[in-house]
């Protein structure tokens, strides 16, 4: 029942990716005696050596707090930290590095927006528009806001294929719609949404627009100017970077008007017990000692992605996807959940009469790491009438052989159960 090596299927045009895969130390291991086949990158990606080295070199050479030190280490740390702001701005084509705010991740970024400008703009009777395909991180903060303010959460529905139904957009977005917050790419079924369209309509109606790009950032080039959104969020750990950090990009004019969220050091200009004045954007939103090592690692992750290039990443990941869909469709007793028009890097499926969790355990025995569960998208699971799915997700380091391993592992699950 060990999987048959199918190296003949390994497309020769991908051999130039071998050196890339070798840069990921965690992938060079065996699990239960089989080589690790990591198909859980939508949860978190593996990290290339250069990211680990960036983090380590900060600690080993420049370890210091930022911003308020005159000594050499602090100066070096500050320069490295702030340089990442400019790098990220350039990466997402943001006009002003000061629009880049470092957060602890996508979740904090969305909460920040909901709790500052969200709270200011959304009043009783207003509406916040999200979609049925959001990750909990883009549901719960808005739900909490709506509850607090007496506003209504309105949901863009989706088709059985997992595409958002945008025909009624003009009526879904009303004068009362104050915020439109939409995922860029679905973490559960892989749909790449037509956000350009949503943003355009929302802007026309005067709503604030926020894009959750957690699942897009490592897979496609992002241009915030071209998108025309007001805010965009992503996490470093899903783009080959360290845990514990992420980015909220915001339009500078909006950020300038917004009141701060967390209070503390670094986000103030002056403090007296009578009142405090706040620092300029972006520091106004970065209270306390930031995750300096993480931000520096994020910079190295951006470098990594840019070195490899989306022109290499996109066709590779598309080929992985196509092979996966084709091969899974050939299997009996397997149903792919969602057939979106444009799909990125994620395939979800269920097996007849086999709980995804049992499948996950058995596949792990073969060294194949997939995710089984609701993928923090319970409303979408309800929409599709499943409690959970098995999800395989890809990154630049996956190979066509990995898909063969996936298929072999699914077959062994079915063998145990049938």
């Amino acid at each position, binding site marked *: 029942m060990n999987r048959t090596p199918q190296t003949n299927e390994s497309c020769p045009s991908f051999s130039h990716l071998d050196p890339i895969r070798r840069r990921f130390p965690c992938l060079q291991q065996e699990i239960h005696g089989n080589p690790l086949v990591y198909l859980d990158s939508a949860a978190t990606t593996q990290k290339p050596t250069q990211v680990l080295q960036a983090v380590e070199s900060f600690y080993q050479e420049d370890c210091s707090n930022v911003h308020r030190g005159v000594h050499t280490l602090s100066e070096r740390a500050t320069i490295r930290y702030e340089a990442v702001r400019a790098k990220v701005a350039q990466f997402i084509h943001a006009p002003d590095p000061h629009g880049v705010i470092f957060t602890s991740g996508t979740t904090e970024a969305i909460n920040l927006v909901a709790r500052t400008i969200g709270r200011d703009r959304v009043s009783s009777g207003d509406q916040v528009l999200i979609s049925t395909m959001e990750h909990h991180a883009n549901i719960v903060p808005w739900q909490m806001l709506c509850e607090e303010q007496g506003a209504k959460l309105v949901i863009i529905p989706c088709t059985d294929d997992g595409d958002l139904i945008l025909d009624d957009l003009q009526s879904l977005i009303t004068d009362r719609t104050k915020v439109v917050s939409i995922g860029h790419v679905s973490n559960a079924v892989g749909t790449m949404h037509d956000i350009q369209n949503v943003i355009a309509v929302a802007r026309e109606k005067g709503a604030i627009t926020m894009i959750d790009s957690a699942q897009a950032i490592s897979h496609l080039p992002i241009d915030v100017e071209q998108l025309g959104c007001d805010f965009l969020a992503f996490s470093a750990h899903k783009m080959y970077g360290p845990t514990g950090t992420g980015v909220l990009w915001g339009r500078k004019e909006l950020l300038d008007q917004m009141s701060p969220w967390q209070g503390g050091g670094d986000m103030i200009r002056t403090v007296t017990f009578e009142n405090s004045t706040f620092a300029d954007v972006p520091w106004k939103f970065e209270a306390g000692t930031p995750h300096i090592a993480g931000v520096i690692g994020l910079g190295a992750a951006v470098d990594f992605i840019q070195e490899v290039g989306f022109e290499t990443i996109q066709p590779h990941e598309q080929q992985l996807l196509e092979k996966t869909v084709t091969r899974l469709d050939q299997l009996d007793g397997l149903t792919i959940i969602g057939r979106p028009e444009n799909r990125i890097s994620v395939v979800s499926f269920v097996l007849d009469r086999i709980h995804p*969790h049992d499948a996950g*355990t058995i596949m792990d025995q073969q060294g194949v790491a997939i995710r089984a569960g609701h993928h923090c998208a319970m409303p979408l699971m309800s929409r599709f009438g499943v409690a959970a799915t098995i999800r395989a997700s890809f990154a630049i380091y996956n190979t066509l052989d990995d898909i063969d391993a996936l298929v072999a592992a699914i077959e062994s699950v079915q063998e*145990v159960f049938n």
Partner: protein
Amino acid sequence: MNDIRELYQEMILDHSRSPRNFGPKEKHNLSAKGHNPLCGDDVEMHILRTTDGVLEDICFEGSGCAISTASASILTGVLKGRSEEAVREIFASFRQMVAGQGDVPAGEGLGKLAVFSGVRQYPARVKCATLAWHTLIQALSGVEEEVSTE
């Protein structure tokens, strides 16, 4: 794959496919709900407890993975007719078998329940095997609060 067969033994697969004592009972006098956020397993245990503390009848409802379904199904059979005290003792041994530290005699005295001894090798699945148990104990305690295995 031999390993995995030790977890998914025939009896477990059988009970997960055709769970026994499944469905609501009219005559139960104790109930509790349990939830495992990891797999999304939901279980509801119903007990008919006599005045002298014997579990005259046990049944369950819900949906979940094979391990949790089989665990609920098998325990209903094994515990039927036992005293509350005995049930708590059996749960202690069961827990020791699936999640205890160090060398543990594999399911000695647990009868049919020994079929879950393989769970020990799969720490992530211990909660699946114990969800029905925790829920049962909750039901016995008479407090109405959902059990969660977080």
